């Protein structure tokens, strides 16, 4: 193997007394993809920011080490010399493409700027080059894109622009920090494909920073696994996945949900000996529609967004119905509509036979006892200024279930139930980890003995190892208490683990609904099939099947028709 392009040795970065990166070493060779994987707080992002001098100058301190690129140590370059490397020879793309593009400048201007600056091209030449790059990243109508502003593009298109911008200078190294985490799974598949194409064309070395083992398996040649600032393992991707040497790597891989793992079973994994089986219908919704009004201008309302159109489903006690779909599919709207956290325009919602929409404000408040919600971001869902003991007690106080010492006993019992200690009662939300916070949210939801819990992406903000624990807790609670779950998720592998039945949503409509095994195993709607095919598999030996090219305009979006017992597909 030739000499490495980038040689990092003993890199250490500290934030105050905390070592975020501790003695990290690796080599990056020309044309290869090296993935740095780890959970939050592992130092994977910090270590790459340090290379480009992008750390917050006051709080972070590079304590030692070298990063030799092209004969010079990046960590010791002056700001001026570093600027010459940055963007020019080492380019970077970020997780959130909206924030990394300047909102007030046109795409064309942002693309040509670097070309004029670093390459000394004339405006006209830079413009030609920019157009060529936009064509290369597969954006339609490049001249029009050049005139557009970032907010006029979708997330996937913005990431394409970012890639075009990064690759326009034909850098030696592309640092991609969670490049697809904010994107929908079908878009993610396209962007990953694009990155591979660009790498093949320009021979760029990619330093890929990610938490997603599926993305690693699909993209990486070699892998560095980080944990708490240290490298725990390094090796070729197949060796890491096939025979991990470090315990941590093995545990990390074991926690990753794998799509297809339960394809032979009908229901979720039984956690307790005699799990409650699906019983009577708890929630029944039909014909729910919601249009979010456009902003009222001077000349009246200007259009609206259809968030839900004729959505209907039912959930039984002890059963999980998963609502899956990409962003903007209306799955969260449906979940919140069921709880009457937002009002639908049309439709009928019944909870245990009671018409929820007919309830007065007062009786709705009472009815909230039977339906609770668990949110995506557990930190935001906990009032920062109220101790968690009082937060968990609040629903019980509101509904007059308990008071005084009995209330305290119940809070303590709930905390134990979700795997926390009663002594935690006096603390505040910011003193807990992400997984603990979600347990607190679950304890709060359980406190009033609900029949139905709407869980909106309950583990999307969590690390995979924590996700596995929270999912297991949710399964155990369902099986012992007979809870009905409306489980909203974009993650097909998680859905497979949790759901009895699945409803796939797109553009505010359900396009396919049926038993989980049938929908995920033998999808009958082309969109479901495309979603499943786009999920990256955490297995480097698997060949991704050619992505089906979807003609989105011609997708059947019509009314649902029953094609098999309990299985409906949009026609």
């Amino acid at each position, binding site marked *: 193997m030739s000499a490495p392009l980038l040689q990092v040795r003993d890199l250490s970065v500290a934030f105050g007394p905390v070592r975020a990166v501790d003695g990290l070493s690796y080599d990056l060779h020309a044309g290869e993809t090296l993935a740095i994987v780890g959970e939050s707080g592992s130092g994977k992002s910090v270590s790459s920011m340090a290379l480009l001098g992008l750390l917050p100058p006051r709080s972070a301190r590079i304590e030692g080490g070298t990063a030799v690129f092209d004969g010079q140590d990046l960590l010791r370059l002056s700001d001026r010399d570093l600027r010459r490397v940055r963007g020019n020879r080492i380019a970077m793309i970020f997780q959130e493409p909206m924030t990394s593009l300047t909102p007030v400048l046109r795409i064309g201007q942002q693309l040509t700027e670097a070309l004029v600056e670093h390459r000394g091209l004339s405006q006209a030449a830079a413009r030609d080059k920019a157009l060529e790059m936009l064509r290369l990243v597969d954006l339609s109508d490049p001249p029009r894109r050049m005139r557009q502003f970032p907010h006029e593009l979708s997330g996937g298109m913005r990431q394409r622009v970012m890639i075009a911008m990064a690759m326009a200078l034909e850098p030696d190294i592309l640092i991609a920090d969670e490049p697809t985490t904010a994107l929908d799974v079908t878009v993610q598949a396209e962007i990953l494909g694009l990155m591979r194409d660009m790498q093949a064309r320009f021979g760029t070395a990619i330093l890929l920073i990610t938490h997603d083992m599926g993305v690693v398996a699909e993209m990486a040649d070699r892998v560095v696994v980080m944990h708490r600032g240290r490298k725990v393992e390094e090796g070729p991707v197949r060796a890491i996945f096939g025979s991990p040497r470090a315990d941590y790597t093995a545990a990390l891989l074991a926690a990753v949900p794998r799509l297809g793992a339960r394809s032979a079973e009908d229901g979720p994994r039984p956690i307790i000996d005699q799990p409650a089986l699906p019983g009577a219908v708890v929630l029944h919704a039909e014909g729910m529609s919601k249009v979010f009004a456009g902003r009222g201008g001077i000349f009246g309302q200007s259009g609206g967004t259809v968030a839900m159109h004729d959505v209907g489903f039912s959930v039984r006690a002890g059963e999980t119905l998963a609502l899956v779909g990409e962003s903007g599919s209306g799955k969260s709207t449906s979940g919140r509509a069921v709880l009457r956290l937002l009002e639908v325009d049309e439709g009928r919602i019944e909870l245990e036979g009671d018409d929820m929409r007919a309830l007065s404000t007062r009786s709705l*408040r009472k009815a909230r006892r039977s*339906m*609770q*919600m668990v*949110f995506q*971001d557990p930190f*935001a869902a906990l*009032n920062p200024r*109220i101790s968690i003991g009082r937060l968990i007690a609040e629903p019980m106080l*509101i509904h007059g279930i308990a008071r005084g010492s009995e209330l305290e006993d119940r809070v303590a019992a709930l905390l134990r139930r979700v795997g926390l200690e009663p002594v935690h009662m006096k603390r505040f939300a910011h003193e807990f980890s992400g997984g603990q916070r979600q347990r607190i949210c679950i304890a709060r939801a359980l406190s009033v003995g609900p029949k139905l819990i709407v869980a909106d992406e309950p583990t999307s903000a969590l690390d995979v190892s924590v996700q596995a624990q929270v999912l297991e807790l949710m399964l155990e609670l369902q099986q012992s208490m007979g809870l009905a779950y409306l489980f909203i998720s974009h993650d097909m592998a998680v859905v497979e683990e949790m759901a009895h039945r699945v409803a796939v949503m797109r553009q505010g409509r359900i396009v396919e609904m049926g038993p989980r095994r049938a929908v995920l195993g033998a999808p009958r709607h082309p969109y479901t099939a495309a979603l499943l095919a786009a999920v990256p598999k955490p297995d480097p030996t698997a060949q991704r099947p050619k992505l089906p090219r979807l003609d989105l305009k011609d997708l059947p979006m019509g009314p649902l028709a029953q094609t098999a017992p309990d299985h409906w597909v949009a026609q």
Partner: protein
Amino acid sequence: MSAPAEPVAAAPVAPRRAIWALLRSPSGAVGLAIVLLLVVVALLAPVIAPYDPYRMASGPRLAPPSWDHWMGTDQLGRDVFSRIVHGARLTLMIGTIAVGISLTAGLLLGLVAGYAGGWPERILMRLVDVVFSFTEIVIALACLAILGVGLINAMIAIGIASIPFYARITHSVVLVEKNKPYFEAAVAAGASHLRLIFLHLLPNVIPTLIVVGTLGVSTAVLAAAGLSFLGLGAQPPQPEWGFMLSSSRDLISGAPWMMIFPGLAIAITVLGFNLLGDGVREVLDPRQRAR
């Protein structure tokens, strides 16, 4: 006055640690020292002041600063230093009462408007906008025209005039907090209107308002001094700083000490509250501290 448009603080800070953090930030420490000094002077005014602030001919008339009269005497022979010391009481009273009025009313208005949404919000906030479009001093003058001249009325007038400011800030914070999941979680738990407003929204609005209120004291002090200067606030013989300034303006060349010292007192007080406000913001807002 600089207005923090974004709500302050995500996590509650323990009181003892907050005070330590305040003392560690330079502006906070200096501001706190000035404000504390002002409070001590106000409380101990009779002890500190060498003369009765109202007694005429405590010394010769219009005497320049000397060992007997540190800041000289005025045209009636009253000791300027003693008057300034006693004036601190009036100043603090103006600050607390005026800010108290505008803070309470603005807080309630903003909370109700932001929480209710819909047409109550539109009506309340448009009203606030209408009042906001006039300069505060004009509104204060209008209030004084109705209430009549006097220091207490001036405080009330200043308080009323700055209600829109506090209402707007509260409203903007409520709009942000109302869209956070924890608020939705409380709604989903079945919480009543009062519980949602006072248990969930209010505590998250207060830190921002502490900062704004502290900064607001200096504005109120300045406005009161202005009104007194115009003869609409403090009346003779009250030792109010603004009024002292105005009564000295004919003598500016002959007895500059009569103008310099009340002016300095106002400036230092305003500076103190501004620094303290900045310091408190740094403590309460972790994002600012990280910068």
